């Protein structure tokens, strides 16, 4: 059987090297065509009419005025009479027209009568949600009551993190053309190989009829897997318009209202322990909402899962607001924020440096050694021991503070198939039904193929983003890099084996004594016995060699190409203005392990992006709902605040690349690095202020309120 395992670390020429993103110039020069750039000849524009009410029943709908407008090609009712609308922004009808302006006018001309029902859109105060609350049951381990009774020290704190949206720069949507016997679908998607089947199902068509292409996409963060109702409606509009291509992308307000949110999470948390910092008890009463279906349930206590005595209660709250979708590490950022905040408050209570308390309790985690090394590394990078001072000892109007957040994630490779073709002229092609969602997947696949074949990057052409290629899983759960690297490796090894079989007789060397190196086929141990890659390929005759490689999650760990279990810690230093409550980032440090790192440069970029998202969520990002109107008030990028460059501060990324981690194989990175930052920043602010701001984002009003509460206490 072929040997697939990765070449030893020190022998790799491309994998593990700092290689620039191959499609960087395409993207930064605007030549890369995203689905929203697919302006086909004869393109029609589609617009949704959405519900202004958060909870209502559609009584009647009259589309005749829209149909009467010149330039309108089709009108579709999505939520017909009798439909119960559960959140504002729900799709009610869709219109296609020859221009976007006409489509907008037509959508506005549709007359809908609603029976307005009562709604609830806010969950921050559990006492006010009434019957919308649903208890998820109690979990008890050990004897929490006794642990608290016997404890030397304990804290009780309130913590909250609101709903945020995905806020994709390229909104959700697609261009789609439904011709006679096939649908051409250009969606902005994280799931090239499955989204076509999803669309086919919605349209009750055979999956074979949907052709998907998405070469570039402008952000999904977990929200862009399905074909979505708007994708299906765009297809139907196309069909009703004689098969002309239809472009339907959500406008910014709709994008922020219905295209996915990260659930909120609130908790009252109690921690018991000893004066030396050892934690002995945990109690949490938490609640959350992610829309009408209730909320995500964060795994508490996070990472420190083995606190011996625990009691957890969780309540789901159902809201009339846009529904949750997976958001970069579902439930983990919330869990990390809640847990690490409570631990840091416990440290403050007993007058200890939280760094020492985190270290002290690592035996309560599943990967104590890794976290210990990472904490030590992070502390060195941020100069923790020199800078740290207890919050209670700080003075002055401008104060700095330090904080820690911690993360864990799986990240095993998904099912992936890859076809690698070596042409007689020596060119190499990789086809894989995966997608590059901005994570440098293209670049990494090229590295793996070129490394395996002993070729330069430029000799390998990677084709992805199309469902005619061998299927690969959706890019979610940080599963892509493990999956596609492994399938590419196997396809390349298999193809190379075929090539070596062809050239071996001529070289007078058994195939298993040949290797590919430096664009040559060389006899192992005898560098003089060699021929160039090109010459070798000429020996294969007129038919190309084309081989498959497959990553099968069940056997992947055994093969050692990819595995799971990524750990990371993040530390932040912030500066607060005690008079205005404005919090600014000085530095965020991430120490992150993800096994074998295929490309440290793009990996660091991936982590830096996650840190920026953490800054947004810790300092400014929040969906603001209005209880009276039931609508999102900041469904724009003016008051839905994201960090700009001056807000980000210094970002320091340390990829934990060691022989030991490397030998585990490849592990996904996208999510683990997006978990600990909010906690680190919130804790740094608490340290700087000498008081906990219970809720993020740390807006001036929340910071000033926390300071005022302390003065009044």
């Amino acid at each position: 059987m072929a040997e697939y395992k990765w070449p030893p670390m020190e022998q790799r020429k491309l994998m593990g090297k700092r290689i620039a993103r191959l499609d960087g110039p395409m993207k930064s020069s605007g030549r890369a065509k995203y689905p929203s750039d697919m302006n086909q000849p004869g393109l029609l524009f589609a617009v949704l009419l959405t519900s202004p009410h958060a909870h209502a029943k559609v009584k009647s709908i009259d589309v005749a005025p829209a149909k009467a407008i010149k330039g309108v090609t089709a009108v579709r009712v999505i939520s017909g009479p009798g439909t119960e609308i559960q959140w504002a922004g729900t799709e009610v009808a869709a219109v296609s027209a020859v221009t976007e302006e006409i489509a907008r006018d037509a959508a506005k001309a549709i007359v809908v009568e609603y029976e307005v029902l009562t709604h609830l859109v806010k969950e921050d105060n559990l006492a006010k949600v009434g019957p919308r609350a649903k208890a998820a049951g109690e979990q008890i381990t050990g004897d929490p009551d006794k642990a608290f009774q016997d404890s030397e020290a304990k804290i009780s704190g309130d913590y909250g993190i609101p709903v945020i949206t995905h806020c994709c720069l390229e909104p959700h949507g697609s261009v789609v053309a439904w011709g006679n016997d096939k649908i051409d679908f250009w969606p902005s998607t994280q799931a090239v190989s499955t989204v076509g089947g999803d669309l086919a199902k919605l349209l009750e068509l055979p999956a074979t009829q949907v052709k998907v292409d998405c070469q570039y996409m402008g952000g999904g963060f977990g929200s862009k897997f399905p074909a979505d109702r708007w994708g299906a409606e765009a297809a139907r509009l196309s069909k009703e318009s004689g098969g002309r291509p239809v472009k339907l992308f959500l406008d910014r307000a709709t994008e922020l209202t219905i295209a996915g949110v990260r659930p909120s999470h609130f908790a009252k948390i109690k921690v018991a322990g000893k004066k030396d910092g050892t934690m002995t008890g945990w109690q949490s009463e938490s609640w959350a909402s992610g829309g009408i279906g209730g909320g995500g349930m964060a795994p508490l206590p996070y990472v420190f899962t083995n606190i011996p005595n625990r009691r957890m209660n969780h309540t789901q709250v159902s809201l009339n607001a846009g529904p949750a979708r997976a958001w970069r590490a579902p439930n983990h950022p919330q869990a990390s924020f809640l847990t690490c905040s409570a631990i840091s408050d416990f440290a403050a209570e007993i007058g200890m440096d939280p760094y020492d308390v985190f270290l002290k309790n690592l035996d309560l985690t599943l990967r104590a050694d890794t976290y210990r090394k990472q904490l030590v590394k992070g502390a060195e990078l941020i100069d923790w021991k020199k800078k740290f001072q207890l919050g209670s000892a700080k003075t002055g109007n401008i104060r700095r503070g330090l904080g820690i957040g911690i993360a864990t994630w799986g990240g095993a490779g998904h099912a992936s198939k890859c076809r690698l073709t070596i042409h007689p002229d020596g060119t190499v092609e990789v086809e894989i039904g995966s997608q590059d969602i901005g994570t440098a997947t293209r670049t990494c696949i090229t590295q793996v193929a070129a490394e395996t074949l002993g070729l330069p990057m430029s000799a390998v052409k990677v084709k992805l983003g199309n469902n005619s290629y061998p299927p690969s899983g959706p890019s979610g759960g940080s599963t892509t890099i493990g999956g596609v690297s492994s399938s590419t490796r196997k396809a390349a090894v298999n193809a190379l084996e075929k090539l070596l079989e062809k050239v071996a007789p001529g070289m007078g060397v058994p195939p298993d004594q040949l290797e590919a190196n430096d664009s040559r086929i060389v006899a192992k141990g005898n560098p003089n016995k060699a021929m160039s890659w090109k010459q070798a390929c000429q020996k294969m005759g007129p038919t190309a060699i084309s081989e498959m490689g497959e990553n099968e999650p069940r056997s992947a760990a055994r093969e050692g190409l990819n595995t799971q279990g990524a750990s990371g810690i993040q530390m932040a230093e912030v500066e607060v203005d005690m008079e205005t409550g404005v919090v600014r980032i000085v530095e965020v440090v991430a120490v992150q392990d993800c096994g074998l790192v295929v490309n440290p440069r793009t990996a660091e970029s991936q982590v830096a992006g996650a840190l920026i998202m953490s800054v947004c969520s810790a300092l400014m990002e929040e969906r603001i709902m209005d209880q009276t109107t039931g609508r999102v008030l900041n469904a724009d990028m003016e008051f839905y605040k994201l960090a700009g460059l001056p807000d980000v501060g210094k970002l320091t990324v340390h990829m934990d690349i060691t022989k030991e981690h490397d030998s585990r194989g490849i592990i996904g990175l996208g999510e683990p690095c997006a978990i600990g930052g909010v906690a680190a920043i919130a804790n740094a602010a608490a340290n700087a202020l000498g008081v906990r701001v219970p809720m993020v984002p740390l807006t001036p009003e929340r910071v000033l309120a926390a300071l005022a509460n302390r003065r009044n206490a």
Partner: protein
Amino acid sequence: MVNFEYANPTTVKEALSLLTAGAEILAGGTDLLSLIKDDVHQPKRLVNIKGIKTLGGISKIGNNFRIGPTVTLDELASNPLIRGAFPALVQASLGITSPQIRNMGTVGGDLCQRPRCWYFRTGNGLLAKGLVENGENKYHAIFGTGAAHFVSASSLGPALMALGATLKIASPDGKTKDVPVAQFFKAPSAEGEREIALAANEIVTDILIPTPPTKNATYEVRHRQAVDWPLATASVSLRMSGTKVTAASITMGHVGPTPIRAIEAEKMLIGQTITPDSAEKAGAAAVLGAKPLSQNAYKMQLAKVAVKRALLTAAGVKTV
């Protein structure tokens, strides 16, 4: 968005004649276009005034500095005359953070822009009856003037008011009038009333700031460092004799439906030296009359700090 006519006059007279019912002035368009796209404004005709040469330029004429209304925010902040005499204006325009907005947005447009209240911008009217009081009002006014709870959006307004500036306004009857900036902003008491003293068929033609210049500064408290609106600002202008204040003018921005003058604070400072202590007291006096809503009491603290820091900046004392 409804369709509209587009007119491109080259003289003020021509522009005035085009400003018939339903017509609106278009300058940089950074505010007006979003209002139109959101269906808050539905003009029948847009009259572009950027082609009118006489409405541009920055100069010193007699006892006044004159700023043309179509001067962009970027031109204003980089003009040597303005930089020399009016740091308060430079600091206020640089607070309008995005370079794109500063490149397109004009001084006249900044003064005449509509409030950003999220209830107003989503079609609930400027007074948004009941919605603000019972809803999300953390960015709203802490100085109540009856029914209006939005905050005046202009960052230049408070600075120009503190500097004692006057606007020259041309009317269709051929007459012009001088309106002090302090009287230009109004708090409407009924839906449909405007928040500025300008009829739809009038044009702001000149912004005049009196000499001699004073020690002046603007301080803005903002949440984000990148593009964001102020949470509170203060602009101050001080006349000094040695280290003593002989006249003070203090205006707070983004805390009321108009820029808010801090008369008590101004009085307190006469005869004083600006120190962290006197500035702090002036800040406290400035917000005494505030009546915050359910979620925005914190803005009192911010306005107080803005006044204090603007005074210290003007006097050349370290702010924090």
